């Protein structure tokens, strides 16, 4: 702690020395930074807009209500089965990942001995960096071949959930750790027991953080292709149970895009991309709204 303070003091010292220059030049530099640093947004978002425009331009002319409500019929039809498949995969994976992630996060923040907690957090960061293709490989060998299930919704969801766990784990850990000490002390001083404090005080405060993690994990799971192709497989019809293969939107893009353009599936690839992007935007806006809602409600708790 003292070392850190020394560094900080040196930084301020250095700042004083640097500030001795000409005032006008310094203000100009500040202004250049203020507006110059906006340039990267243009660099990053111009291509994004180009991408979104291209997808919409290709998808919308043939987009009808039936695209959403119809199953695939032969080499045409709609995305109904894929939307259901994506929803079920994401719902299952999110449920599993949330159970595991919150339990591990809560335990890390509240109960685990410091050494264990440190190890858990490091491992959580590592798990977030494990390439999806490696998880897909693992899922194929374990959940498709070794178990003898074949391609199944459950296998796909389990593989996805491992991809999602670290995001929920880390946000839950952060959220529970960030509960102000004053709240804890107040609760404990009132004679509350540990679980009462956790359930009635800590959880409501932690919920926005946990939700952030859950929704972020959902968005990431929605966009994955590689781990699903070799675990959830593919099917023309809507899934019939946990042990049937299923179709999903990213797979529709992947598979239909490589079909000959003149037989009808090609157009569905772009419509699937469009639907998926709309879903991602919706989830992101929800995330912001939820975060904002809680930020307002909890204003004053943090300062």
């Amino acid at each position, binding site marked *: *702690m003292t070392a850190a303070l020394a560094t900080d003091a040196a930084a301020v010292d250095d700042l004083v020395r640097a500030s001795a220059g000409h005032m006008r030049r310094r203000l100009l530099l500040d202004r250049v930074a203020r507006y110059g640093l906006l340039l990267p947004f243009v660099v990053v978002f111009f291509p994004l807009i180009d991408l979104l425009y291209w997808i919409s331009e290709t998808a919308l002319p043939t987009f009808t209500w039936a695209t959403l409500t119809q199953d695939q019929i*032969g080499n045409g039809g709609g995305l109904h089965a894929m939307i259901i498949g994506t929803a079920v995969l994401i719902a299952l994976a999110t449920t599993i990942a949330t159970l595991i992630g919150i339990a591990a996060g809560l335990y890390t923040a509240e109960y685990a001995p410091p050494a264990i907690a440190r190890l858990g957090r490091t491992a959580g960061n590592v798990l977030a960096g494990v390439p999806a293709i490696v998880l897909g490989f693992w899922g194929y060998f374990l959940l498709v071949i070794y178990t003898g299930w074949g391609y199944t919704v459950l296998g796909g969801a389990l593989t996805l959930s491992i991809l999602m766990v670290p995001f929920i784990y880390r946000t839950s850990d952060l959220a529970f750790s960030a509960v102000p000490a004053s709240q804890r002390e107040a609760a404990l001083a009132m004679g509350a027991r540990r679980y009462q404090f956790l359930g009635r005080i800590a959880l409501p405060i932690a919920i926005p953080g946990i939700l952030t993690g859950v929704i972020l994990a959902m968005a990431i799971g929605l966009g994955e292709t590689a781990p699903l*192709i070799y675990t959830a497989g593919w099917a023309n019809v809507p899934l019939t149970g946990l042990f049937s293969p299923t179709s999903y939107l990213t797979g529709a893009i992947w598979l239909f895009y*490589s079909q000959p353009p003149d037989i009808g599936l090609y157009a569905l690839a772009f419509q699937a991309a469009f639907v998926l992007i709309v879903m991602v935007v919706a989830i992101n806006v929800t995330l912001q709204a939820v975060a904002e809602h809680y930020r307002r409600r909890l204003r004053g708790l943090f300062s």
Partner: protein
Amino acid sequence: MSNGTNAPPSMNDSLSDGPKRRGRAVIGVGVAVAIAVVLLAAGFAGGYFLEKGLAPSGGSSTTSYTITETGSTLIYPYLNLLAPNFTSLYPNVAISPAGTGSGAGISGAEQGTVNMGGTDAYLLPSVAAQYNLINVPIAISSQLVFYNLPGLSVSHLNLNGTVLAMIWAGAISQWNNPLIQAANPGVSLPSTTITPLHRSDGSGDTFMFTSLCYLSWKGWSGGYGTTYSWKAGQPGYQGNSGMVTGLHSTPGGIAYIGISYLQSALADGLQYAALGDQAANVNGANPANYILPTPANISQDANLALQNLQPPSVAISLILGGVPGATNLVLGGGGTLPTAQYPTPYPDTNLEYILISTHPANPSLQKYVVVFLQWAISTGATAPRLASVNFLPLTPEVIGYDMQALSSVQVSA
């Protein structure tokens, strides 16, 4: 503000080490996690027993079946056309095809995770026997060589197997190479650098094309297969549609593309070559040795190869490489030489296969698999359905072989 008496102060402690209290909550969280783990384990076990124990017995009372297929992306759209029509004939049978790749189709059939495995490349008879599988061809497909060379005076260049192999091996690097010029007398060829494209993903097209090169040129090294160690620096593209797109944006490029993509490649302004037969590898200058991929010529290749096989087998690539007199007509199946019975066989043709088990786990379902395949190679194979993906109907010899092979499948317990 002392930080406890014995806990060492560290960043970690300040974040994680709230007042700990032994209590029911610890056990509560533990129990919750334990339940989650048990549920997961139950899921695993349940799935296992559902697959192993319940599925076979469940088939006895109900009459509704779903036949699953996975594999080749080339067969996928064709099966999509067949499936609804078959279901309208047999309302209790649904067919669910999946385009996951030929390798996945073979793997699925071997592991028994699907009822049918679709593949563009045959499964070696020895391997098939090991897993009790049979190769059931359901259609004839072929492969075209496209190039991006606008402004030529002819609509189809003449290219033979030797030239193609040398192009991909890097031995021919410019379009006005004497060997290409010799095959195309009177055509003014530019000195543009040739950029040969290949498929990056595992592909039956790569299998066929490398077979053609392997058979046609002695300098070809590295064998043939669904993947190949290409000469360094050549661009690879994902899928046939990737090849069409890539070739479109590569002036001077050349690529092998499945015939299903004929329309989209032509729409992109690409042209395809007339391929040399075996004689062209010896006498490349004779225009009569170059064959266009018309349906008649493709069928001739199929007939030529399949009628002459000794012993009969359908596990072959119908590639006419090599030189006349050589005995390497077919790969995998063995066979004899073609005769002059069919004068213009297109040399780069293949069969599309469905792999099924002869000793299925669920014979009553397998009965419908057999019924479906019998239908798919006979009355189901209507001209419009085949034409929409540019496939051709099987020859009578292959249908006869299929029917015989299908009769060996165990369809009752």
